[in-house]
């Protein structure tokens, strides 16, 4: 439905039968679904060696991205991002707090990414998984180190009151590539934030705000996260999905701007990646970022 793959490509590839399944040395010919379940890595390998992925995409093809902003009225800014069927919602709530003594004008931004048990059977109830903690932490670092927001813009009264922006990103339907979807929803929601005019009243040491929310945040840039999967150390898969993720030998995330400036790179271990591959991933990421920015601008204009 949301798959941007042309129908011809999808139908042209007989998705139900992986290429050369019957040539298995096994005496038992398993039906495709059973084969996929029992030998998942081999199932993917057979597709990829023919230059196509089980969902019909080519190796370098990203899933369709879709952004809508403003669905959550209880938030000061909100956005829903979809990559294929991966769906995440980011709601940003602004509250008032005291600044740190060392930085009396600086407000706070607190990003958190949650993979609740609702979104996939691989996430259990209880404390957040290592994956969601790592994504939250990396996003936090990117926000800080790329100086996306000038935190002093969040000052209401120096040394007394500043805004704290809680950016909570919740995944509703997990179909792979959480990082890209989370970053996209976050950036879209930040661009959608409107804060009310706030005044600090010395008399009762309290901040009061107007009901209308009119003040947008000033973002210094628009970083886009673009993730690649590496299969068998040799196939580079753009935007890996949930079926591919467990079989990848490595992943690479590029946080990039439209002009090609970088805000982060993350390759959390796995098989080695050479300089040439890095260069080609950076190229592909830049093209993808330009495409995503177009969609983002469209979504913000529609509002």
């Amino acid at each position, binding site marked *: 439905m949301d798959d941007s793959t042309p129908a011809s490509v999808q139908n042209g590839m007989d998705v139900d039968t992986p290429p050369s399944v019957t040539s298995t040395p096994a005496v038992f010919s398993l039906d495709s679904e059973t084969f996929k379940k029992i030998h998942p890595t081999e199932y993917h390998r057979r597709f990829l060696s023919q230059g196509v992925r089980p969902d019909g995409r080519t190796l370098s093809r990203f899933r369709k991205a879709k952004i809508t902003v403003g669905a959550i009225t209880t938030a000061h800014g909100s956005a829903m991002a979809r990559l294929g069927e991966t769906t995440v919602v980011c709601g940003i709530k602004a509250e008032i707090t005291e600044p740190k003594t060392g930085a009396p004008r600086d407000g706070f931004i607190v990003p958190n990414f949650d993979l609740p048990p609702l979104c996939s059977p691989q996430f259990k109830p209880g404390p957040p998984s*290592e*994956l969601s*903690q*790592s994504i*939250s*932490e*990396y996003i*936090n*670092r*990117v926000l*800080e*180190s*790329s*100086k996306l927001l000038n935190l002093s813009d969040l000052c209401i009264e120096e040394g007394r009151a500043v805004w704290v922006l809680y950016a909570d990103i919740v995944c509703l339907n997990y179909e792979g590539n959480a990082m890209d979807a989370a970053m996209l929803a976050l950036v879209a929601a930040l661009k959608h934030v409107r804060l009310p005019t706030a005044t600090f009243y010395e008399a009762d040491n309290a901040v009061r705000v107007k009901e209308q929310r009119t003040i947008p945040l000033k973002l210094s840039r628009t970083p886009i996260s673009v993730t690649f999967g590496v299969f068998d150390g040799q196939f580079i898969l753009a935007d890996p999905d949930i079926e591919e993720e467990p079989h990848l*030998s*490595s992943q690479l995330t590029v946080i990039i701007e439209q002009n*090609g*400036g*970088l*805000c*982060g*790179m*993350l*390759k*959390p*271990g*796995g*098989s*080695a*990646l*050479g*300089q040439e*591959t*890095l*260069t080609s991933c*950076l190229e592909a990421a830049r093209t993808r970022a330009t495409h995503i920015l177009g969609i983002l601008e469209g979504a913000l204009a529609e509002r």
Partner: protein
Amino acid sequence: MTQRTRPDKRHSPNEMRPFYCSSALLSRADGSVRFKSGDSAVMCSVFGPMEVKLRDEKLDKAVVEVIFKTAAGMTTTKERMYERIIRQTLEASILSGLHPRTSIRVTLQVLTDDGGILSTALNAATLALVDAGIPLRSLAASVTCMIDDTGELLLDPTAIELERSASVHTFAFDNVSEGTLANMSTGLFTVDEYMRCYETCRLAAVSVQQLFRTSSEGKVRREYG
């Protein structure tokens, strides 16, 4: 060319801090190492291959567990991210298929942090795995560098230097593959700067590999004469 002296008296931006390691400190562990790079020091102990909790058990390979603790003993999201990066980097090195249904636990305790702690921890972990005799396909060596606010590249920066960083880059390279095993870069940087950091760290990793060899040699020679 004017050479600035770095806060810790190093003369060149391309100079690593001196590093040391000492091993077999914890008698109960199967392998243990203290790795020190300048004033950043990490203690690492390795247990395994040992029995694994049934729910974590993997049919075809050993489970690698990494525990990363700060000097204060805290575990926040930052430590969990480090654990994930270190675990997945070590997984690429460990021949885990030789010990299915077992667990290999790597515990990292930061003693002091003066910058580049992720690299220090990774190097400590690699050496502790060697000490424990865990079968390894290769050895992962990690190096951190930064680009400061003037655009200068500084290898192996200290905490004071990191305060002036425009971007920070940590890489891991092994002694058999072409390319990087792990990379975490943050800040604002260009593709050119990134590639310069990649190349600088790749070269510096060779000297870390040399340390791996001499320290193993020292230990074995001592015991076997």
